[in-house]
């Protein structure tokens, strides 16, 4: 009976852990990766939406596809992944105890990378223990991994990217999202994610929180109310909704206990209890590293880069890579990471209210509170131009690190430039042919094609559409505005799908010319009604 020794032990087979193991294995390190789950990939396989960023960040690729690519790469480089393996202890001398099957096994690593990720935060309100109150992550697991609907009518608490993305996915799965509320006065996530949810007709209640989940055996309703400056409910502002599910997306906390146990110096921050570590993930204990959400909450794209940085650092630490090799690879990776940390939502800007874009354009106030840019505000953004002939209308109004639209347009109609966070600009010199590749490439589903006078008095709007069943050509329905309210009757004139669009279908509707800058969503007649 002995302790098994490995060059590198990775705890957690999510985006950070797998990336680190791959990077180290490329240099000859033999890593072993433990994960307590039955499937590798961490949260990646629940992410069915397209990711943001640039080509090198795998932008416009859906999260689960990135997960598949990562697993294939891990296999190619001989990374050993042990599943259903729960690490129960990590000690300063780099010994790891793992529950595998019905036994505790002991391992010793010359290096350890902790990439255990994060867990969802909870909030307390009357009735929060009723069945039907679930985390947004749990809702995603049910829908996207197990294909089970979490409920029929859902209220979402939390307007960060998780709350927004999961609300949209709930609707894609066939749930009704009755409202999205957040105690904060402004929407926390990307405006484009909020806009996607708002145009489906979901009302946003900012400065609102849950007072009570109702029901005896399970959730049958919820009451929310407006919070005042003292965070207390303002009497008389209560609103009731009949729901069977309350979804909570109120942030994540790093699962850093193993690092604490190993004697790593820890920091108690507003973002949770995290290890003190350098830019390469080295903690205060030599040979123990941390990468991904466990060292501070970000998202999967940055976790993968952080993992790679720790991976090459470990390879050098163990003598598998030269110092120069490490340094050049790290500078390349750090440049990628820096790009992701630019813009309005950069970690450095957390909690700050940004009034203007980098271009000096006033941010849409309506977007921050209601979830959509108003008809009056939309015209001031550079992606929105008025032309008679077909052209893209890019309702991208916040500086986020993302540029697939620029590469998507082969005609040169769309320009972002070298600064990845710049708002896309329509270049009128180049002629749009209406191919729709930009529409499908936009991870924020914020690009539309607009053409006036396809027949007297009528024009066409082409929109990204990711709902089933797909409408059919000739179908008569209702066009909805950015706020999700019906604006006019319309007819479906084109439905395009293509492998190049990767499941973002292009739906073209015919509306009166004066509705071309208003109509942004389509509903079949029976579901929609005018106010």
């Amino acid at each position, binding site marked *: 009976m002995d302790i098994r020794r490995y060059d590198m032990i990775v705890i957690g087979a999510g985006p950070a852990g797998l990336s680190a193991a791959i990077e180290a294995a490329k240099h000859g390190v033999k890593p072993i990766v433990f994960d307590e789950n039955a499937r590798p990939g961490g949260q990646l396989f629940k992410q069915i939406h397209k990711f943001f960023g640039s080509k090198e960040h795998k932008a416009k690729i859906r999260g689960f596809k990135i997960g598949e690519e990562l697993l294939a790469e891990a296999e190619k480089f001989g990374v050993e992944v042990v599943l259903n393996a729960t690490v129960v202890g990590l000690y300063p001398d780099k010994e790891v105890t793992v529950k595998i099957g019905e036994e505790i096994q002991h391992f010793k690593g010359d290096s350890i990378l902790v990439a255990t990720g994060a867990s969802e935060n909870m909030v*307390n309100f009357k009735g929060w223990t009723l069945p039907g109150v679930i985390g947004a992550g749990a809702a995603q697991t049910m829908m996207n991994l197990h294909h089970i609907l979490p409920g029929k009518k859902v209220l979402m608490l939390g307007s960060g990217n998780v709350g927004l993305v999961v609300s949209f996915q709930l609707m894609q799965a066939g749930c009704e999202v009755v409202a999205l509320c957040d105690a904060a006065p402004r929407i926390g996530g990307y405006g484009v994610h909020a806009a996607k949810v708002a145009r489906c007709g979901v009302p946003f209640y900012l400065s609102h929180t849950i007072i009570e989940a109702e029901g005896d055996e399970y959730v049958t309703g919820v009451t929310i109310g407006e919070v005042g400056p003292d965070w207390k409910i303002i009497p008389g502002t209560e609103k009731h909704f009949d729901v069977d599910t309350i979804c909570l997306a109120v942030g994540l906390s790093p699962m850093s206990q193993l690092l604490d146990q190993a004697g790593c110096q820890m920091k108690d921050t507003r973002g949770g209890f995290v290890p003190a570590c350098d830019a390469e993930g080295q903690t205060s204990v030599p040979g123990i590293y941390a990468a991904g959400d466990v060292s501070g909450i970000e998202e999967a794209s940055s976790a993968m880069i952080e993992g790679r940085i720790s991976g090459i650092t470990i390879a050098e630490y163990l003598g598998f890579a030269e110092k120069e090799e490490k340094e050049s690879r790290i500078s390349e990776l750090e440049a990628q990471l820096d790009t992701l940390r630019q813009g309005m939502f950069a970690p450095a800007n957390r909690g700050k209210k940004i009034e203007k874009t980098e271009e000096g354009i006033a941010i849409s106030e309506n977007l921050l509170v209601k979830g959509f840019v108003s008809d009056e505000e939309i015209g001031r953004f550079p992606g929105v131009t008025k032309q008679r002939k077909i052209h893209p209308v890019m309702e991208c109004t916040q500086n986020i690190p993302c540029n697939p639209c620029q590469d998507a347009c082969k005609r040169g109609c769309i320009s972002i430039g070298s600064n990845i966070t710049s708002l896309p600009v329509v270049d009128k010199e180049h002629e749009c042919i209406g191919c729709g590749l930009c529409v499908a490439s936009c991870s924020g589903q914020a690009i539309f094609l607009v053409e006036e006078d396809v027949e007297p008095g009528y024009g066409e709007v082409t929109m990204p559409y990711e709902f089933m069943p797909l409408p059919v050509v000739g179908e008569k329905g209702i066009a909805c505005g950015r706020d999700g309210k019906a604006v006019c009757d319309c007819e479906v004139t084109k439905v395009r799908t293509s492998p190049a669009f990767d499941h973002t279908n292009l739906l073209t509707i015919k509306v009166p010319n004066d509705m071309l800058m208003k109509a942004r969503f389509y509903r079949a007649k029976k579901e929609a009604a005018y106010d």
Partner: protein
Amino acid sequence: MIDIRQKLEEIGAFEPHADDGLLVCRCEEVTKGEIRKAVHEGIFTIEEMRRYLRNGMGLCQGQTCGRLVKSIMAAELKETPDYVEPASARAPMRPIEMEILGKDQGGAYE
């Protein structure tokens, strides 16, 4: 080192609130009122609170309530959450059957 007596004086006596019955730690059924009251009995750290009320000692090991308990304690102490010292992390990090733990002889099984 916190002067417990001075701090207790500073925060005043325990006052009942309408939401004292709210469950915070569902694994061990510990309420908000119990946690607030314990603070007035001189429990200022998570470690002590866990031993005193058993919050965070159940199946999820405080994964759900840990942050909430910290903020309830901090509010009661009129401080920010980082004032409340976290609990030590110990093995086993995840719930594990005694039967399995008992078989552990310090090595790997082939």
